[in-house]
């Protein structure tokens, strides 16, 4: 049973692994930090937020100051999907943003008895109904354990 935990991340309750919803890459132990299975890039924020007023003339330009702010981009090592972008001061440890109680998660879903990939959506309203099932199942060619952490 796979539970959509974010737009791009499943927790597979059978294997207790974080996996990529796009390509089935294995990010590691679902009881731990999925970021440990990602590739990370330290982005100069000026590349993402271009200046509107001339940085040659002015200190404040619409671009974040790289001495204050970096953007850490977390990629799936297999499909290259950007699964998180975190704004941090230079040198600040990346945030462990989610830690889940897997036993409780399993208990809740077993009690419900339905498939999380079928029933989870974006909330109330017709346009929030979506398909959060694995994309790799629909395109084929991947299995859950095709890409283990550290094999990229």
């Amino acid at each position, binding site marked *: 049973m796979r539970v959509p935990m974010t737009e791009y991340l499943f*927790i597979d309750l059978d294997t207790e692994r974080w996996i990529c919803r796009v390509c089935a890459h294995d990010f590691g132990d679902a009881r731990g930090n999925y970021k440990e299975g990602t590739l990370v890039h330290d982005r100069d924020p000026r590349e993402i937020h271009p200046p509107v007023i001339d940085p040659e003339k002015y200190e404040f330009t619409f671009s974040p100051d790289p001495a204050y702010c970096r953007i850490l981009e977390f990629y799936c*090592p297999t499909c290259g999907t950007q699964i998180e972008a975190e704004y941090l001061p230079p040198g600040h440890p990346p945030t462990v943003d989610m830690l889940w109680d897997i036993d409780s998660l399993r208990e809740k879903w077993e009690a419900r008895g339905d498939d999380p990939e079928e029933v989870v959506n974006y909330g109330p309203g017709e346009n929030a109904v979506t398909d959060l099932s694995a994309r790799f199942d629909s395109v084929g060619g991947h299995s859950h354990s095709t890409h283990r952490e550290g094999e990229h």
Partner: protein
Amino acid sequence: MTLTTNEFVPTGAGDDDAQLLTDQEQQWVDKFMDETTLFLGPDPAIMRHHQIMPRSEYEEECIGQGIDPLEIDRIRKRLAGALDEAFEMCESMGAAPGAKWADLSCAVYTAEGDVTYLSNRGVIAFSAVLHHPIRYIMKNWKDEPTVGINEGDGFFHNDSRFGMVHNTDQSMLVPVIRGGHIIAWVGATIHEGENGACEPGGMPSGSETPFDDGLRASPIKIVEKGHLRRDLLTFLQHSTRDPKLMLADIKVKMGAVRRIMDTVDRLIDEVGQETFVASLRVTVEDVETEVRRRIGELPDGTVTFNQFVDSTLKENILIKFACKITIKGERMIVDLTGTGPEILNRAINSPLASTKSFMAQAILSYWWPDLPRSTGALSPIEVITEEHSWADAGYDAPVGQSLQASFRGFSALQTAFAKMQFSAPQKYSNVVAPWFNQINDFLWGGTTQNGEQVGNLCADLNGMGGGAKAFRDGEDAVAPLFCAMADIGEQEVMEEEVPFLQLVSKRLVRDNQGFGKFRGGMGYEMIVASRGTPSWGFMTVTSGSKFSSVPGMFGGYGCPVYPLAMVKGINIYDIIRKDPSQFNLSMERVMNEQPFEGGDYQSAHMGLQFDVAKEGELYMIAQGAGGGYGDVLERDPELVVTDLELDRISAHTARTMYGVVWEPETYVVHGQATIELRAQMRRDRISRGKPYKEFVAEFVSDEPPADLLYFGSWGQDDDEELLATHWGGLEPERVKGKLEDLPLIMIPDRRVLKINRLEARVRELEEKYGETVEHKS
């Protein structure tokens, strides 16, 4: 236990049996303390609690007579109608600019002060914090012979240390009395603006002590048995720059509250006092029960979201707002440990109650907007903070711009919720990226073209960009985080009352977006210049000029940062009169081309203390954008070229950010080329990304960069260990320790520091060129 009578014994008493007093002795002590108290400040027993009160004996008795849920629902709907009517009265008649744009709210409270129901429109946080002053009034004034609480009385206050979002708001709280007993309260609160602070407009970025924050009214009885007290009114009018505003809006609030009271009176006549009281109480309890149930639907675990704020509004710093939210069964714990210390001579600190009021705002408008708007929504959630952090400021800290911290309390909950609720099969609101969270707006003050002294703000603070939803782009300039149905006003109407023009009023700024699969709502730019006034000035009160105020969600990017741009030493009206083609203004063109001869072109962070604006000098800012959602390379290429065609994004962004290839003449997307470019961009990511452990080993440092004026924990392994920048001597030094062990943090005047640097440079040059100059201090 009740917090509204003198039965409550403050915590902290020793557990030594020898210290215990007999009942008689305790009465003597209480009597002595009561008679010799120097003054009544904010009461920690009231101010540090946000839980609903236990049922009173009378409420128990009323509920014991039986509950009919349908009847309670009917009572609630009648109250909702009355509150919305009172809201519209304030909106239509209010003199404050904020009132005209919905920055207000009305509510009904239980006898002990718990919010039962708020007006459907307006600012939830305004009313969600007023249980504190009601408890204060009940505890201190009910049995006080010189004050008392009688039918027709009305209480006024604005000091946020007694429970108010910030000091620019003013409340009117009126008891509902039957048979000599207080059985409920009704109230109205308006963002009034001017409050006599060190700068006009009521939200001073320049305040350095609580005395700079302006009027500091603890709850006072301004209306006695239906009559407005002229002596107190006169005092209040003399305490601010806008005496007409003070008079007008106290009367407006009295009228609005009277309208609610009419419905309350009729309801009590119809259903009986007991049923009315039971319905108020049951609503509060039901909301609390439902919130616990909904927490139980969320997955157990911990979500962490840290924010970094880059300004004291006087200088650039980096101060952390830490937040860990843990769910375990039906318990939720919001832990702000790791948040930076209060800064004792800067305006950005927030009282705990104000911070919590914006947590209630997030819950009732972004988590579970279908719930009755009641205090019960925050009540079951445990909140851990450290007193004297900037999110839980002490009595002596200035709080004039407390929104800097309290808005972060909102963002902490709003942002984390996307992760908390994503896997929940039952949702009550959509998955959404962070809402913009700053006050990108002009405050102003001076003498109007009509000869009046005023101080207030533009409505543009209500034009915050919405966060992207998981299935559609965020809406441009849609609503402030604190009010779903606020208005950004009619500029032409305002220009009849204030002596400045918005020469550019609502123009979107290209690339001012949180990029993503779905992008955040955009903000617009504003260019203002004063005209026809003997004295005028502008202020701005915003952080986020170096560090983005909001991030994106699930791979989406956050908003950019926002500068203040000014052109001093020109008169744009003369320039346009001579050459109308120059009325082609945008921040980009004016600042980059510098077309006006003799102009002094400046950019700065968005903390501008009151700045005298001579006729025709330009002040330029932009409203902020909401966060983006999802990977940019998944954005529909057609949406990208549509934004490009409308000049919402640059060609550079379309190609290098979104990986779209198109035909420049026709904006037709080249599908295959786009697929190939995006595939290459994904390969490039894989190529440049480093495995997490390797990356951490290279990127993470033990401390912030030495020249960064940093405050808060570093990382999250030990949030109790804070770092701070301390000016013990001439130079700043970094100090570490638990909050209670840190020295008091005060920042020296930046102008003094600048003079020191310039004097040092002068001496250096004198030495270099062999010039002997005698310096005397």
